């Protein structure tokens, strides 16, 4: 742990009625870092995000974000502290338009009184315009989000994530179901976001992870198996055993 860390997970254990979804997991993230997290099914990748965002309370251990403990805080409070999350399957508000979706994400403060009394601020409208350009949805601004294609939905959710201006972005499988071209664009987008923001990407797609060109943490059975660059982990014997698979003899 050092001063430059944005997030520290210390000995996190999550037990679902005896089943250890996470087992003494330790992970540190530096400010501005882009980190990829991979691991086989059931390794605890989504539970790991659930613990950070407050959906699941760890049985043991500590989550320190910007020097504050997140354990026991409500989800919306954690979100307001600066943790944003993109879900595995795109979770956008399908009955609202693209613009309304983005309004929900960029609005601050997020109190009922502010929402019902005041109209949206000019700077927030500018932010929406900017986001629409980044994710290429400017022409769809008044369409119902439910009418977008799968790729566009993924991008809208990423735009909503960025619009929340979180210090830490947790991105769960952003390229599931995207075309190769969209995958490449997404990788570039996430890379450009890091630096200013800290980004954690969870994915299965090795090509995509390689393109992110970042440090990789490999999860297995609820704990961090190995950390390092893509080259290092690809040579790691433990990783090969559990995840990448041994070459056929």
């Amino acid at each position: 742990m050092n001063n430059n860390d944005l997030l520290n997970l210390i000995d996190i254990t999550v037990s679902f009625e005896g089943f250890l979804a996470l087992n003494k997991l330790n992970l540190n993230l530096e400010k501005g870092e882009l980190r990829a997290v991979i691991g086989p099914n059931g390794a605890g990748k989504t539970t790991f995000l659930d613990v950070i965002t407050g959906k699941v309370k760890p049985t043991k251990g500590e989550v320190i974000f910007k020097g504050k403990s997140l354990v026991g805080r409500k989800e919306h409070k954690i979100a307001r502290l600066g943790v944003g999350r993109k879900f595995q399957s795109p979770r956008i508000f399908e009955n609202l338009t693209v613009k309304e979706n983005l309004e929900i994400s960029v609005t601050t403060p997020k109190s009922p009184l502010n929402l019902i009394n005041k109209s949206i601020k000019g700077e927030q409208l500018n932010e929406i315009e900017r986001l629409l350009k980044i994710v290429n949805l400017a022409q769809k601004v008044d369409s119902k989000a439910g009418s977008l294609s799968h790729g566009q939905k993924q991008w809208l959710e990423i735009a909503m994530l960025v619009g929340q201006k979180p210090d830490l972005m947790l991105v769960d499988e952003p390229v599931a179901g995207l075309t190769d071209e969209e995958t490449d664009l997404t990788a570039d987008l996430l890379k450009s976001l890091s630096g200013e923001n800290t980004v954690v990407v969870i994915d299965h797609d090795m090509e995509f992870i390689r393109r992110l060109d970042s440090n990789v943490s490999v999860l297995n059975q609820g704990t961090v198996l190995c950390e390092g660059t893509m080259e290092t982990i690809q040579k790691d014997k433990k990783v090969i055993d559990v995840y990448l698979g041994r070459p056929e003899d």
Partner: protein
Amino acid sequence: MSFSKIKFDKKIVLSFWIILIALIIAAPTLLPVFRLNLLGRYLSLSIVALGVDLIWGYTGLLSLGQGIFFALGGYCAAMYLQITSSSEFPNNIPEFFALYGVEKLPFFWEPFRSPVFTFFAIWIIPALVAGLIGFLVFRNRIKGVYFSILTQASLLVFFNFFNGQQKLINGTNGLKTDVTELFGQMVGSESMQRLFFWVTAILVIASWFFAKWVVKGRFGNILIGIRDDEPRVRFTGYNPVIFKTIIFSIAGGLAGISGALYTVQSGIVSPQFMTVPFSIEMVIWVAVGGRGTLLGAILGAVFINYAKSLVSEALPASWMFIQGGLFILVVTALPEGVLGWMQGDGPRNLLQRFGLKRKIETYPSLEVNNKEGNNE
């Protein structure tokens, strides 16, 4: 595109309003007082339906306990009317107390001597009770069918409590209002009923505009967000508990106003307002009219109730079957209600079924490409 709205021409909207206002002004002279009174009662029910639409249609909270707040509003109005008209009775307290040997007015009746207090109590008390129940339920993340069951259970608790309190509020007999006086006139008199009709009509329109104001813009979008994906709203930094408590409280306040108007026009408030079927009927009005449309709630409440009285006059005892059938029809064939169906693709699909061709929505560029494709 289930919630898309038809854009009406401004002239059509304007003429609609002129006709509507003309009808409201003319109704008391056109209709016999019996029919007018029925219409007034059904219009007042449309206010509670608006509340149901806000919490169910927009926010996804299916409350089966709106009768609680409806009855509370009714009791507030009736208590005021009873106490201000009790000067000739023993001890200057409402007549029914004498039946149970009560000589001193229970303390909570006292503030209802004041018309100002009553005016606010009619909507603030139900709104506070709804806010309290709502907050406790929502804070514990009780939702879906458990929320519905809980609201129904609360309804039964209130029903049984009110039923048993003869010495406080005349228990199961309820409080009569038609022989009380307001502004020196009998509440049940023809001129007063005419006045109540106008008050109701104005309040229905006012409530409708208020509800529209609540759901327009970002506040309403958060409500829809909570309905469709509550955890997502939470992870975006909003606290759904507050939003749900506010909207449930608003629906409670509307129910209170509705209950008060209904009470003065039907002449009595009693625990019967808190029976289980009545609160379920409120949900049916909204389901049939169209969830999430507001106007559908008003139309549903008025038309179903009017149909109920017409059918009951012609074929007594058959109404329950018709109402049940209507509900099944809506759930299976028109899940978005009549208005939702009209605003959606319903009419076009129907025309198509009768052999009329339906225009396919497509991108202009696609059509151009197709032509190019044919040329090749």
